[in-house]
Structure formats: C-alpha cells, structure tokens
C-alpha cells in the first residue's frame, strides 16, 4: 500500500448532486478525504448523509458532479467496482446474508474484494480467508457465534457483524453508516475502542448519531443539512459552532 502525499486526497467529491425526481437529496457536495483521516458526518435525519454514502459507494448514481477514489473517476462505476479500489461500506439498516453463517458472511466479504467469485473448487487462499474471518469475528466479539446462521443472531450481534464485514477486508477507506445504532452502552464503548484502534493508515468515514462515539473517534467532523455541507472542523470546533448547535446539536440534546 502506497501512502499518497496528503495534498492528494484519497477520496475527492466535486459538487456531487443526487436528485430523486424533484427531491434534491444532495445539493452539490464538495469533500476531500486524505489517507488515514477519521471523518464523522453529522446531521439531522434527511440531511443527506446516507445518500452521500450511497453516492460514494456506488449504490446510487449521482445526477451530477464527480466522485474520485485515488484519482480514479468512478462516478458512474457500479458499486461492485469499489472494493478493488479499497472501499468498504456498511449499512445503516443491516444488510447481511441471513441464510449463511457468520464465517461465510465474513468469507464472502473477502471473496468480493479479492476475486475468485466463480471458483467451483477450493483454492490456495481459502484457508487464509477463513482464518482472517475468524480473527475479524473476534474483533467484533462474535467468536462464539462463528458457526451460527446470521438470521439467528440478535440485532446487536448483527450490527457488530455489519462492522466486521468492513473490517475483515482491511479496506483503505471504511465507510460506516451508524455502526453504533442498536448497540448497548457497553458495546458502544467497545466499538469506539475498535475504531480508535484501527491502523493509522486506514481511512474512516463515519455517520453516527451517538456523539460520544462520533466525536471520540473522529478527527474531523462534517455537518450536513438539507443535502449540503454546512460546517466542517475539528470535534471541538463543531461543538462550539452556533449554527451547528442550532440545526443539529441543539435538537439532539
């Protein structure tokens, strides 16, 4: 993995616009994220946070603007091209494979990034991936549920696995959409620990309503409202920004 100079952002968004019919969900967002940055995206419901993630991850196609990952314009590339560019995302509403075990879920996450999708036989890296799946399961506290069908997991465990699905592939850019929702207080603390312990070169984008988690993990915070970025700064700056307090923190607290 090469480390780009900080001036060359890993992720570059230029006036990204997403409109669903007449409803403008993203109104020209510009955003640069450099390698190793920990960025939290805050904002009230309907601010466009998840839409921003979808546009970056390729789950929806922007109606305007460009998305570049490592200088590659992938605005129009389908979502399946993202993992090889080093991107991994999780979903706010759990999207796991309920009919497969925790192990197979984590296995598939690696398959997807590394290829060998159509193999009808065992291959050399299978054992390595299985082992990495076991390690990742441990990191999200699911070692005991390694063989359990995901459909049989509790909601909290599924949220843990959702994070695990991103962690296991060791992506360059990890995009977590409300990873702490549905977790107990203790689990949130462990999640915070997990995220702060990530390797320094890993880049993290985080949507999170829980300020304790978000502001502890993030180095930089972007606040969105009505599809636009309205503020950007360090956690402390954001805490003190009156506009932010009015539109977001004020309502939350």
């Amino acid at each position, binding site marked *: 993995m090469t480390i780009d100079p900080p001036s060359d952002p890993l992720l570059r968004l230029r006036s990204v616009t997403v409109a669903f019919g007449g409803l403008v969900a993203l109104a020209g967002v510009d955003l640069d994220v450099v390698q190793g940055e920990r960025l939290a995206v805050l904002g009230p419901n309907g601010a466009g946070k998840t839409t921003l993630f979808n546009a970056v991850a390729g789950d929806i196609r922007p109606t305007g603007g460009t998305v570049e990952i490592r200088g590659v314009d992938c605005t129009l590339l389908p979502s399946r091209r993202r993992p090889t560019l080093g991107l991994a995302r999780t979903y706010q509403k759990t999207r796991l494979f309920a009919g497969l*075990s925790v*192990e197979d879920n984590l296995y598939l996450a690696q398959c997807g990034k590394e290829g060998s999708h159509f193999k009808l036989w065992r291959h050399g890296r299978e054992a390595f991936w299985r082992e990495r799946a076991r390690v990742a399961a441990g990191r999200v506290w699911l070692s005991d549920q390694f*063989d359990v*069908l995901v459909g049989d997991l509790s909601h909290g465990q599924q949220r843990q696995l959702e994070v695990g699905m991103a962690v296991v592939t060791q992506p360059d850019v990890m995009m977590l959409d409300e990873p702490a929702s549905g977790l107990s207080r203790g689990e949130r603390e462990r999640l915070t620990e997990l995220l702060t312990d990530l390797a320094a070169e890993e880049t993290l984008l985080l949507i999170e309503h829980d300020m304790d988690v978000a502001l502890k993990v993030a180095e930089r915070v972007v606040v969105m409202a009505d599809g636009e970025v309205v503020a950007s700064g360090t956690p402390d700056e954001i805490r003190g920004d009156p506009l932010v307090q009015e539109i977001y923190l004020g309502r939350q607290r």
Partner: protein
Amino acid sequence: MSKRTDRKRWLSILGILLGFALIAAACGSDDDGDDEVVAEEEAPAEEEAPAEEEAPAEEEAPAEEEAPAEEEAPAEEEAPPEEETAGDNEVRLGIMAECEGAFGGFHEDITAGAVLGMINGAGATSNSTTTALDGFSGASVAGTPINLVGIGCGDDTPDRAIQEIRTLVEQDGANVIIGPLSGDEGIAIANYAKDHPEVTFLDGSSGAQDTTLSVQAPNYFRWHADGAQWNAGIGDILHNTAGWDTAAVIADDYGFGWTSAAGFTAEFCAVGGDVVQQVFPPLGTTDYSSFVAQLPNPDEVDGYFWVIGGTGTNASLEAFLNAKGDLTGDQHAGNLFFSPALAAALGTDIAGAYVGGFANLPGDISTPEIDAYLASADAAWETLAGGLSGNEPAEPSLAAGFGFMYAYYSASAAFTEALAAVDGDLSDNHAALRAEMSTMTWEGPFGDISLDENRQAIADTSVQQLVLDENEEVISKTVVIVPAVDQTFGGTFSEETDPPERDNVSCEERDLPWVGNAIPVVDGVPQN
C-alpha cells in the same frame, strides 16, 4: 452449514454406491426372470423417501393386488409381457380414450364405440345403462374371454398418450389396445407399438397419415380412413361439377390441418385443378384478418377451401366476410369442420358449399345396416352423455351416428370378427388374428372396410353439401359416396414422401382409382 468435514466421508459413501449402481446397471437389465417375487415384498420400494410411509404404501399395495385380481390368467401377474404371449388365452383390453383436452367431451362416445363393438361382436353386456365408462362384462369370442383392464385418459397430447398407454400395457397388462382419438397421439402410439410386438393396437379415430403410412408398425391396425382420405371426392366435385379451376387453401398449421388440406389438394390437382395459394394460420389464432388478407380476392380465384377447426372456423370466415366480401356457397368449401351450424353466425348464403367427409357416413343416409347399428347402440344403453349432446344424457344413437364413436366401434367390431374367424387363437403374438385382420373385409354398417399392406383402412367416404331445407334452414345433405378410398391417393403419398406439411404439398395431375366411381346419393339413398 459447518459440516464441510462430513463431506469427504459421505462423498466416499456415495461414490461406492455409485460404483455399485453402475455395475448393477450393466447386468441388471437381463435378469427379468429373477424378479418373481411376491407382492408384499414390494413394500420397501416406498422407503425411497422418508416421510411418506403412509401414502405410497397404501397406494401401491392395493394397486398391485388388484391387477392380478382382475386378470384371471393363473400365476402370470409378475411376469413381464414378453413372457405372457406364449400362453395368452384371454384378451386383456385397454381402451385409450380421451378424458381431457379439446376432445375430452368425446370420452364417453369413443369408449362407448369400443364397448359397443364388444357387445355386438363378443356377447358382452354393458355394466351400466347410462355410461360406457363402467365397462362391460361377459365378453368372449370362441371361448376366449375379453376383459377390460383399463380405460386410458388422454388429453390429445402425445406425451400423455404414451404415459397412459404404458400404464395400460406395462401395469395393467393389456394385450389389445383400442385407441387413441387424435392424430399426434396415434403417431406416438404407433411408434410405441413397434417396441411392443406382443400387443395388438387398433387405432381409435386418429387421422394422421404417418401413423400407418410411414411408421408401419406391424401390430398397429387402423380400421378407418385418415384425415386426407376423408376429403376424397370433394376435389373431383369442385373441379368437375362446380367448375373450379383454381383454388386457395387456408388450413390450420399443424398435423391434421396439413393432412386434411393435402387430401383436398392431391385430388383437386389430380383431376386438373390448381391450388394457387396456401395460407396456414397457427393453431389458436383468434384474429385471422392478416391471414385472410394473404388470400387472393374472390375475382382472382374460383374458390376457397377451408380447413380451420374449433373456434377458428367461425372466426376465420368472419374475417373473410369483413375483408373480402360475401361468403357464397359456390365459392367456398371445407373439410368436416364446415357444418350447418356456421349458417347461424354467417347467414344462409353459405348454402351450396361442399363439405368433406369423416369416419362414418352422414346422418341423412339410411340403410338397413345403418339402422341396425344405431338400434344396437340404443339397445346397449338407455342414454349416453356424449359430446354431441353437450355431455347431457341423450339417445345413444346420436353418439353412435357420429364419426368418433363409429371409428372406435369399427376397430372393436372388426377385431371381434377377426378373433372369431381364427377361433380365438392368440398364440405367437396374435399371429393368426393379425393375419386375418390384414386380409379380411369388415362389412361395416357404413360400408365395407379392408386394410392395405400398411394395415390402413381402404374405406368409403362421402361428400356433403350445405343446402336449404323447406324451412329455409341450412342442413347438410350427402351428395356422393366415394367407395374404396385408399391412403396413397394413387401414389401421391407413399412411405418415401414426407408427411404432409405446409411446404411439401405437390400439385400434379394423375389418375386416382376412385375418380369416376362415386356413387350419387339422392335424398339419403345411395344410387347403386
């Protein structure tokens, strides 16, 4: 999900079993003789699948026990058919009927035809006074009993026909089959017959030409004319009496349509006419306007010959009415689908049209033999719920006077007559019986029928005309009877020619053996 490690183990188990299966497959086929095991031991068969312990056990066991009960033959129940033939001393009759599909309404009719043959020819009595489906009892010819082992339930598809025939032959042990009803079924069963030389097949009413002309199963006998033969006589009349020199043909695009159209075309061309255009709408067409548009206009051709069946008959003629002008009797003719009922929808202008024949002769013809045949049907049952009466109870003679029941009756009656002639001898794969049927002439109520070298009927057929009766209603009147029509149309069709299809209809002049021999019919009385 986590049993991957089991896989090696059970793969190896299955692998061993596979090897076993292959070995068994190699030698398992020839040991039929070892299979003489009593019925109870068949119960394990049901374990194939866990969980239906109840259902199949109950289904299978009675089936196995009943079959032998119906058969009186001693100790033969498990033996394969091949081994039965030597000691055959009874006829186990299977009737291949038609309980579903487009012709399902004639299930009763055709079964009754086969049963009536047994009643008239083998001294049987019907088991019911209102239906033939309950079968018959007490049939025997020259000391050889005839038992009904089953009535097959076709749906006019060959696939189903084969499955039903296999059930009748391989499960119920039938050694004589009467049926099936429709053309494609007939071809399939004739092919099946080739692989089952121990069974004698008597075609029911199926009209495809290939069944006998090209399949040529030596144990398959058809005691009625095929779909092409049914149209004999009409081309001659249209050219020489109605004065058509050119004709256009519109026919259903499937086996019977091609065959029927080919019969018309062969004769019309043989006597000097010319078919200038052929149109083949697919079966099931509802809007015929685009096909009618392909036909020449009324001033460009002398007449049109229609071979469109089912609901298409009306729909296609109406399309013509809309696109090309009046439907006049002098410019239109059709095969057996052209019925007086058309006038109800299309007006009485259609009167005058000539119509091709069917397996029997039309109802306006009356001879002592025909009257006796119809009376025998009325004596056998009080009522039959046949297809002509909309499956409501009606006089049995109504059904008996129609081609479906009569065709099955022909097969059944000719069979009993032949069996009597050989004194009930069924030995050597029914050799004597088959030889007799190949050479005899069956004097049926609607005319004499004999078989050609392909065991195909040489039979009389008729041409009718739609006419107005005194009440100004359109009825059907027989014009001529064409005697001794054979399948080949004077060599137009042979084993070498492809079966009639839309592309391979030949139109050339040639001599037909029956042209000039037609017997005029005046007010239902043949003038011979």
